[in-house]
């Protein structure tokens, strides 16, 4: 079964979602895996690729569009297929570009498409999948009736396994893909970015933080843990924190290994955005806050007294 995996790089790094997809595909005995990575990479990352476990890996190193241009990536991947043959199965990790590229590829390949896949109930059959539905409130079992299939994995659906076994790694020297019809007027790129959707640990603050001036200990904890910072909707609505930090149904849906909710009561819209997290920690002064129902660990108390203690303990770990 010809299996295709795709990812772009992010700040010279290969995103974790790529390795998730590779591990997921590697679990299928019949998969002949070909992976394409677009974008520049540090040498360290290139070296690390040998531990990715399986498959033939290709690089596309020419310039990528400055904007998030799905037509470009569709064209790129179609060129790749023209040369290497069309796959039967496409497995994509949940990066921003893949979320858009996956359904487009499904149309092009006339393949059945399922997003937010969490597992295969029949381990060797990629045509039957389990996925989250209704904002993570229920799991549905879905059957793909077409011969070809495109799966977009839910973030953190699988833990990537480090292993030898990569067959080839080479540059794919193709004609540059093209896209037109759009003119770029301005590009603002943050100096550093820790993407919420990529972050393994997120420290998040809610209205219980009382105000933007009290965020310092939360940021210190995030720094000590190598975590990204996030917030609940009221916090971004009040302008205490930027909108891109908003996690929840209408903000970002995240699924880190660890989500630490500080002073967040846990409205259903917020829980919908974090339900895929592996471990949730709740710190809140109200013992009846719904966040404790969703949490794995909880501390009832004043977040402003607790955070500095956690910062100190986290720093001691290093």
């Amino acid at each position, binding site marked *: 079964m010809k299996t295709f995996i795709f990812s772009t790089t992010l700040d010279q790094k290969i995103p974790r979602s790529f390795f998730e997809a590779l591990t997921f595909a590697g679990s299928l005995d019949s998969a002949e895996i070909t992976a394409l990575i677009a974008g520049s990479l540090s040498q360290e990352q290139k070296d690390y690729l040998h531990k990715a476990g399986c498959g033939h890996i290709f690089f596309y190193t020419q310039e990528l569009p400055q904007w998030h241009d799905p037509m470009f990536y569709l064209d790129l991947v179609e060129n790749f297929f023209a040369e290497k043959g069309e796959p039967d199965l496409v497995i994509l990790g949940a990066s921003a570009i893949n979320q858009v590229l996956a359904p487009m590829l499904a149309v092009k390949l006339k393949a059945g498409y399922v997003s937010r896949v969490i597992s295969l109930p029949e381990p060797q059959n990629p045509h039957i999948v389990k996925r989250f539905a209704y904002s993570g409130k229920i799991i549905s079992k879905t059957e793909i009736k077409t011969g070809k299939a495109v799966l977009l994995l839910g973030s953190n659906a699988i833990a990537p396994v480090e292993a030898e076994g990569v067959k080839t790694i080479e540059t794919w020297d193709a004609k540059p893909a093209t896209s037109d019809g759009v003119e770029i007027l301005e590009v603002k790129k943050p100096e550093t970015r820790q993407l919420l959707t990529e972050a393994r640990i997120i420290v998040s603050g809610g209205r219980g933080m009382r105000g933007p001036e009290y965020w310092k200990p939360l940021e210190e904890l995030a720094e000590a843990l190598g975590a990204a910072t996030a917030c609940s909707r009221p916090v971004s609505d009040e302008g205490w924190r930027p909108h891109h930090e908003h996690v929840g149904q209408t903000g970002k849906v995240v699924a880190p290994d660890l989500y630490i909710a500080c002073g967040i009561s846990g409205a259903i819209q917020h829980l919908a955005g974090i339900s895929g997290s592996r471990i949730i920690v709740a710190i809140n002064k109200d*013992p*009846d*806050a*719904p966040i404790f129902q969703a949490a794995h660990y909880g501390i009832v108390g004043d977040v402003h007294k607790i955070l500095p203690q956690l910062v100190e303990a986290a720093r001691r770990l290093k």
Partner: protein
Amino acid sequence: MDFQFTEEQLMIKQAARDYAQRELWVDVIERDEKAIYPEKHVKALAELGFMGMMVSPEYDGGGMDTISYVLAMEEISKVDSSVSVILSVNNSLVCWGLETFGTEEQKQKYLRPLARGEKIGAFLLSEPEAGSDATSQHTTAIDMGDYYLLNGTKNWITNGNTASTYLVMAQTHPEKGHKGINAFIVERHWEGISVGPHENKMGMRSSDTHSVMFTDVKVPKENRIGGDGFGFRFAMQTLDGGRIGIAAQAVGIAAGALELALKYAKERKAFGTEIINHQAIAFKLADMAVKVENARNLVLKAAWLKDQHKPYGVASAMAKLYAADIAMQVTTEAVQIHGGYGYVKEYHVERLMREAKLTQIYEGTSEVQHIVISRALAKGELLP
């Protein structure tokens, strides 16, 4: 018999709910505490068309029925009755009174801006010595030939300071008793009108309640509503409809308290389980729900009768009497369910309890509603 709402009625209910929960909720505690008039909300609700929602589109109104109106009143009152009373006075007293009994000229001049919500109206009946007994009006309007000369004081006037258009009841022919009373359209800015200080109320603190004094105010003849001596009937008929609005407000206060108490009971834990699993709380909630449902049905029945152009005076009195009483009961229980939290402002229910009390008093006290209902009973009007 059909208990289905139309899609449109549900849409209006949802629109009112969205506005109330999203916008009014945010600053209602602060407005209540500091008695701040909800100016921006009145403006926003006017833009949405709520200020004249029952007025015919011909006069710039929303053309909606009374059912839609009570659904909207309920949703807004779940959050803030200071706002809903402004809506109620403007819609069911001032706009309805003008549309039903005003001349074409009066409607063109006064009803249109009121229906658009650009201007706010007030209804001036109560006096320092004439509250429930509206027959004994001390305010006088002497017929001077070309105009009426208005003198006297009105009390407890909702929108007293913000209104531009007053509907004022005054005695023209004292010898005729209540049949000598007239109703007038009076503009706030006319000479001789002064407004007393804002009343520091127990509840609905951000609605704008004042006394209004008239000293030799000249009212043009064409500003009288209806024929000479029509004022008392005008006031009574208008208040029949007004009561439906206040009854809906009382239902909203009760239903709002029930929603909050239910939410709290599902979250709050005691003795190892959510308190809703304790029968003492669960049964209380069940009783509250029955009362709210009963009151709501009475209000909807009165609204339906009005929409069907059937007599609704007694039905509206029953709705107002019952809804106001259960609003008091349900809000008190909601405070009880919240325990200590219910007694602090942050949890909203103590405010709803303060608001509920007023619904037993204004637009006809509960005692007056008893009179209306018992008289109808005595006349055999209520028995099948």
